[in-house]
């Protein structure tokens, strides 16, 4: 007899009390190799209203396409000081921003490399379990052959793409929880 995973429950509105200790919106300390990028956006609800009490967690490979994790057995270098993890709360206008390096490509289940991407969890009051999505990069030719992007109907893929915006050097990417422009969310289990 195997066990069943514990039931998820919402983070509620007060998660800052317990989760602020690991808040980090800068994944790339000085000296970490790779192309520095800044990603900024908003979390919006079904009415387009900002969600000021959301929490974004990001997880990514380093510029070599290597995760700082023992189950990544690839013969590629890890970088001391680069964990690949960030935890960013939204603020009053629903916005968030973080700085990192563009991740390298990691292997996909089809034997091809995946396009560069950042895995994202979204938590907020109202969500009894997290939402999982990914950030891809609009200018990447490899998106066309990416395993996960190809699971998504073409008309919705743009919701996963960080795009050049009005501000120099800042990529824009929003999380729209519900509606016609709803962000693509993935079922990864819990």
């Amino acid at each position, binding site marked *: 007899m195997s066990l069943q995973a514990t039931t998820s429950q919402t983070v509620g509105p007060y998660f800052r009390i317990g989760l602020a200790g690991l808040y980090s919106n800068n994944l790339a300390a000085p000296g970490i190799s790779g192309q520095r990028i800044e990603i900024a956006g908003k979390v919006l609800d079904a009415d387009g209203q900002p969600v000021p009490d959301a929490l974004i967690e990001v997880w990514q490979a380093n510029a070599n396409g290597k995760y700082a994790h023992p189950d990544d057995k690839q013969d590629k270098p890890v970088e001391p000081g680069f964990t690949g993890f960030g935890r960013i709360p939204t603020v009053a206008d629903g916005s968030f921003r973080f700085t990192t390096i563009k991740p390298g490509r990691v292997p996909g289940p089809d034997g091809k490399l995946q396009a560069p991407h950042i*895995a994202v969890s979204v938590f907020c009051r109202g969500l009894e379990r997290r939402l*999982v999505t990914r950030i891809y990069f609009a200018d990447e030719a490899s998106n066309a052959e990416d395993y996960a992007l190809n699971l998504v109907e073409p008309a919705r893929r743009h919701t996963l793409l960080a795009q050049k915006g009005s501000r120099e050097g800042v990529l824009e990417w929003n999380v729209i929880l519900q509606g016609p422009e709803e962000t693509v969310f993935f079922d990864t*289990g819990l």
Partner: protein
Amino acid sequence: MAVLPGYRRPYPGTQPNHLHPPYVSSIKRSPGKPLIYLPHTLSEVTGPIIGPEKIDVKASDLTRQHSGEPLGERIIVSGRVLDENSRPVAHTLVEVWQANAAGRYLHKVDQHNAPLDPNFTGCGHALTDAEGRYRFVTIRPGEYPWRNHYNAWRPAHIHFSLFGPAFATRLVTQMYFPGDPLIPFDPIFNCTADEKARNRLISVFDWENTIPEHALGYRFDIVLSGREATPIEIPGGNK
């Protein structure tokens, strides 16, 4: 390159749907389109590792973070973190947060007319040991009103956040207390269809960890997603 097995998917009914209308905040914040099933890739079977350098060993005692003792009933909350294959999840981070004994959170959004306690922040963390065990000393949180519906009250609860070994094993949940009369009326607790799964969120009174003349014990075991295609299953574990 070695093929890594993915992590198991939830049993039907044991996890909440994103939309649960009795929990009013879910109505505008849950996706309306179906989620897209993503087989686990290297990105999902790896995940952040929070090591001992990030841990303050004193953070597991929520009653000793200030100059005085917090008001309320001192309790010991402990348990094991296992995976679905009954294996301990060792050295993984457990973060907790909660209201004080009067049912008030130390948070600017919480305007409930109950006193703050200068000796209680309501924040703790710890790493599990090699056997997946964790232990917190805290005070029993109070129930408190919220605005979900008329005369809505949250049962007493402690929030838990865990990473486990992979992005796919991330879990945020809440622990409840046995015998709390508010539990049957709570839409957050009741959002999960499977009654047994829901009831596993209720801790059990724990004589073994009760300290004479000092604090009652409550046991709360947590199960994270386990690897698929596990060659050996170990019997025992949770009820």
